[in-house]
């Protein structure tokens, strides 16, 4: 079933060598929380901090010029990675959450009118829910939710029942961070376009490996996080269509985002700088650029096929465990699997697995309304990435059997 050179990939992630050296077991199945970092990313950041650490824009000495170029080169890499028409459509943020907060404040808060509606789904991460609740409360907007069936699939055949509401924005997750379900963006965006509704896609879980051409798909905004794309923490991306970003008022204000400042009023820089107040995370942006270079070296469709097969294997093995329930039945699924095991609490499962060197996540995964939909408080979540092997899955399954017999004894 293995098509791809996993040992060669693992060699690029120094964390595996460290665990080997320390003689510690290490099975990393928490990729939906954050992915591991390959050497080129670490080296790019190390290079910046070691050799040309300086602030960007306006510095006239050589290392400042180099830093500015590296930062703006990273923006172009992001533009090319997502197929955006212009580099200025790429705004560097702190991460997905920061990107959504920016769009909530500047688009919904700045351009929508009282009574306008925002359409979400019940499977959103709190990051794509709470900012909309907050902005709605302040600006008299209204939230509406797509219907979802018992298996956790959005009922897009019912979209037309929403046609008469004054919906101005759909903010939707591409891949559920809890269920792993892949939502049908094409259908949602096509429906929205016919009605002149804007669409924001939360691509936190999909941006790394799933092809995402923003012009072809036609979304208005896309947000993602560098650290879920083999890049560093503290950096994220907001893609926004040029004409929208230009219309939107600034979000945070201060240095770097201005054109001219007087004592009582100011004018603002052009996009994207209008939305990048203060010194940005320069090293992290450069690290993200290196992560995208790394991703470009992968044959992503081939890796996706491999991961689909490994996920199928995982699900088959999990289903062999008596009393284990996988959350949701996806029409189309990614490499994230949530499950419960009898009445053994997910935190207890995760603690036992941690002792065996197996990293998973347990809890509500920042999706409390989704947990309520499934009438549970928490789940255990295994999420796979390119460096995972069948041996990793076998270790997980074996440990789950041990846990079950311990709790049942």
């Amino acid at each position, binding site marked *: 079933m293995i098509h791809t050179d996993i040992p060669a990939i693992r060699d690029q992630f120094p964390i595996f060598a460290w665990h080997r050296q320390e003689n510690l077991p290490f099975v990393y199945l928490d990729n939906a929380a954050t992915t591991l970092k390959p050497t080129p990313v670490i080296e790019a950041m190390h290079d910046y901090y070691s050799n040309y650490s300086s602030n960007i824009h306006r510095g006239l000495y050589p290392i400042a010029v180099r830093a500015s170029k590296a930062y703006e080169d990273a923006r172009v890499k992001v533009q090319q990675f997502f197929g955006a028409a212009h580099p200025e459509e790429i705004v560097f943020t702190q991460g997905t959450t920061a990107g959504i907060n920016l769009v909530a404040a500047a688009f919904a808060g700045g351009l929508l009118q009282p009574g306008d509606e925002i359409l979400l789904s019940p499977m959103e991460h709190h990051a794509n829910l709470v900012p909309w609740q907050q902005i709605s409360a302040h600006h008299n907007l209204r939230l509406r939710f797509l219907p979802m069936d018992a298996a956790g699939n959005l009922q897009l055949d019912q979209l037309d029942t929403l046609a008469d509401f004054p919906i101005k924005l759909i903010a939707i997750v591409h891949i559920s961070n809890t269920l792993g379900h892949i939502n049908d963006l094409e259908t949602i965006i096509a429906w929205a376009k016919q009605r002149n509704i804007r669409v924001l896609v939360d691509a936190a879980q999909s941006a790394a490996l799933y092809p995402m051409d923003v012009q072809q798909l036609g979304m208005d905004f896309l947000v993602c996080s560098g650290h879920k794309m083999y890049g560093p923490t503290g950096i994220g991306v907001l893609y926004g269509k040029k004409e929208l970003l230009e219309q939107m008022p600034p979000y945070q204000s201060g240095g770097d985002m201005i054109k001219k400042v007087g004592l009582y009023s100011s004018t603002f820089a052009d996009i994207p700088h209008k939305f990048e107040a203060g010194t940005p995370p320069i090293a992290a942006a450069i690290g993200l650029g290196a992560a995208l270079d790394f991703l470009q070296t992968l044959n992503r469709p081939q890796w996706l096929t491999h991961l689909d097969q490994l996920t199928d294997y995982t699900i088959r093995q999990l289903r062999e465990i008596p009393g284990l329930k996988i959350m949701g039945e996806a029409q189309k699924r990614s490499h994230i699997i949530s499950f419960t095991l009898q009445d053994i*609490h*997910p*935190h207890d499962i995760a*603690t036992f697995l941690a002792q065996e060197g197996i990293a998973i996540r347990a*809890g*509500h995964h920042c999706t409390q309304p989704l947990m309520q939909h499934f009438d549970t408080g*928490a789940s255990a979540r295994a999420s796979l990435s390119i460096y995972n092997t069948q041996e990793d899955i076998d270790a997980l399954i074996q440990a789950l059997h041990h846990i079950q017999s311990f709790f049942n004894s």
Partner: protein
Amino acid sequence: MDDKIKALYQKVIIRESKSPYHYEKPDTFDLAIEADNPVCGDRFELFLSLDGKKIDAVHFTGYGCAISKAATSVLLQIIEQQEIAVAKTRISHFLDFIQNPDTAVRVEDLDENLQAFAAARDFPERQSCVTLSWKALDQSV
């Protein structure tokens, strides 16, 4: 399976989490206390019946891991039929034992049921499970 983890989940915790003490909402009570950990989603409700300065009975319901459920179950047994002041002292003793690395409280000073939680000191990430209901009660009474 290593010894540390077995120690953490020794018989007391498994037993108390599987058949927790007074695990129901009583018909009448004087005080309801919420013990809520938003980070992990554990949430219990504790129901106290008071008799003057004495805690007459405590019940609880809710959702949580084996450790938080067992710790709540044992808490109830420790404070029932105690003067509030005595209960508060016992709670602060136990919290100090779990949370304070330099604690003067020794394992043998604790009730047998509480000694089971000593292993949580080796699992800092699980200490909040042990202390969830204890802290909530300490703050509310």
